[in-house]
């Protein structure tokens, strides 16, 4: 692994010595391989595209800026959000494609591939799943999305201010749902609220009429929905169709198109990282403008997170290139822990010792098919 790379680097050096060719040509040599382990098909295929769009834009920006000496390329492996497919894809990325950096999403897939990446010392970055069990899976497993407990914690004061004190929770009983359940149970009373009822649902459930009836009985002020993917839209429609008129609230998984464009989702309130696309930093504004130009719509939190994940790689690798080091899991990790704070979309992102980002949380509302920050 090291040998050929040093040789390549030497070649690169001579190429770069040729003065001031067009800047885009300054990137030469074998590309850095950014592996992606996203669901590209199956019921969660919608996420795969969101994630990839964000990552692809970051690569384009890095190329335009000449951030790195070598180009980057995406190597996509479809996981269908299943752990077994994830492990197959991850071993391919690590062993065949020699990926320098792997983007993952989805809790089960992340947990399944973490040991593979750990053994191969390949950095894996999650920007989609927010289960708190994703913290500290491996020194090489980082999160560029604030994990759910941070989001929910920051949400509670807002709910109380809005006088939404009795909360009913409709959740999928996975580590994420569990974490939110635990938080609401312990922290909500402290904040002056009350958990009115909890309703666990199978991930494959389709009928929400009967559940709505049970939820209605608890007379909540608001209903917290903790699921992900297409099921969320189904839950929202099911609750709204069956007499739930109270506000529906949730976390960042709600920022997908099938929810945003659903007429019943009008007024849904959810948390996400703070992104100010008009008044924010230059990086944020550039991301928003170019994303809009390319895809014809506002970017969502997931687009931004995977943009950030790839941008983080570019920033780390640039540091390593400057020191003429080799870009690998150890050097990336050492650089992350040394630099700690990065200019990312949404502002400064700061990483803790385990490689988890913390950033500001904002509250959004879906109004007229658009996600509008309200607090």
């Amino acid at each position, binding site marked *: 692994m090291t040998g050929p790379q040093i040789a390549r680097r030497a070649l690169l050096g001579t190429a770069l010595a040729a003065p001031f060719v067009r800047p885009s040509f300054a990137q030469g040599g074998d590309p850095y391989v950014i592996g992606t382990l996203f669901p590209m*098909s*199956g*019921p*969660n*295929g*919608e996420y795969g595209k969101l994630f990839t769009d964000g990552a692809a834009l970051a690569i384009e920006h890095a190329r335009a800026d000449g951030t790195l000496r070598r180009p980057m390329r995406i190597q996509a492996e479809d996981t269908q959000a299943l752990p077994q497919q994830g492990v197959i894809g991850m071993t391919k990325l690590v062993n065949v494609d020699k990926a320098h950096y792997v983007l993952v999403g989805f809790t089960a897939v992340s947990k399944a591939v973490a040991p593979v990446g750990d053994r191969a010392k390949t950095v894996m970055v999650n920007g989609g799943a927010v289960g708190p069990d994703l913290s500290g899976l491996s020194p090489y497993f980082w999160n560029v999305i604030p994990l759910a407990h941070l989001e929910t914690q920051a949400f509670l004061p807002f709910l109380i201010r809005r006088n939404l004190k009795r909360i009913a929770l409709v959740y999928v*009983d996975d580590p994420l749902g569990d974490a939110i359940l635990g938080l609401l149970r312990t922290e909500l009373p402290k904040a002056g609220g009350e958990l009115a009822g909890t*309703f*666990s*649902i*199978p991930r*494959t*459930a*389709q*009928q*929400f*009429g*009967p*559940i709505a*009836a*049970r939820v*209605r*009985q608890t007379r909540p002020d608001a209903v917290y929905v903790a699921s992900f*993917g*297409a*099921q969320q*839209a*189904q839950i929202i*429609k*099911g609750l*709204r*169709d*069956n*007499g739930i008129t109270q506000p529906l609230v949730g976390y960042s998984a709600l920022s997908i198109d*099938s929810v945003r464009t*659903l*007429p019943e989702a009008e007024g849904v309130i959810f948390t996400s990282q703070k992104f100010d696309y008009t008044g924010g930093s230059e990086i944020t504004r550039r991301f928003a403008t170019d994303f809009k130009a390319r895809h014809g719509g506002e970017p969502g939190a997931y687009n931004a997170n995977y943009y950030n994940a790839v941008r983080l790689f570019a920033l780390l690798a640039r540091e390593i290139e400057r020191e003429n080091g080799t870009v690998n899991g150890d050097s990336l990790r050492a650089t992350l822990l040394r630099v700690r704070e990065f200019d990312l979309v949404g502002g400064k992102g700061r990483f803790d010792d385990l490689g988890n980002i913390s950033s500001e949380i904002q509250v959004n509302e879906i109004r007229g098919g658009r996600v509008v920050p309200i607090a």
Partner: protein
Amino acid sequence: MLFLQLLLQGIQTGALYALTAAGFALIFGATRIFHFAHGTSFTLAGYAFLFCWNAGIPWWAGALAGIVAATLFGLAMERFVYRPIQRHEGSFFTVFVAAFGVAVVVQNLIGMFAGRGFAAVDTSLSRATEVLPDVFLAPIFWIAIAVAVVLFAALSAFLTRTHAGVALRALAQNPDLLRAYGLSSNRLSMLAFALGSAMAAPAAVLTAMTTGLNEAIGHHVMLISIAATIVGGVGSLRGAALAGLMLGVAESVALQFVDTQWAEAVSFLVLFAFIIFRPSGIFGVAQTR
């Protein structure tokens, strides 16, 4: 009041299950083909309706498109998949696998062309209002029941009053007649597929309005249809319809007694119990070992 609410909701779901299950039972009874792609007819019909709705085509034309899509798919399956397999005297399991393969292909094609994930028709018909204190009903409740009643009445009239219908029923009750019928069984089998598949379409259209569709919805529909057919007693349309209704009600009313995560498992518990304790089903002729 919770019980009443759950019961009514169960009836709405059950009416749709009953329609789909009756279609499956009709096909299975008359042809002995385990039409595992029946759920795919349902999915196609639902998406055809959704497509027409989004294109601004009137609802009745959309529903018609759904029925046509389901029927054509059923006929194509009969002609191009099942008949060649049966010519080889392929077993029940060969048929099952072939149908499953088709279901996988169609599911992914729909995902590629119609988009993945949740899709629903936006209509106020599915919006429930309070009809009694704490009991909410949507207009679609009445539509679902009316559609089910009308279709079952029409179907039973067809099965008892027409030659073709009587022949189909004879086949269902006495499969050995299949051979005696010789060549004409081909035509009867096509009739069974056309009718049975068409039965899935109205349920699909209504589902597009209530719970919404996704490209994989056929799976669930299929499982319910199989369960209802077995619980009702193979060969009995009445049984399948009743069992479909019952499964819908059980799934919903169960929430009165158990936690929400167990609702889905209830249907299959009912199925499992029937197979162990009363394998002939509600109306079936004893067909054990």
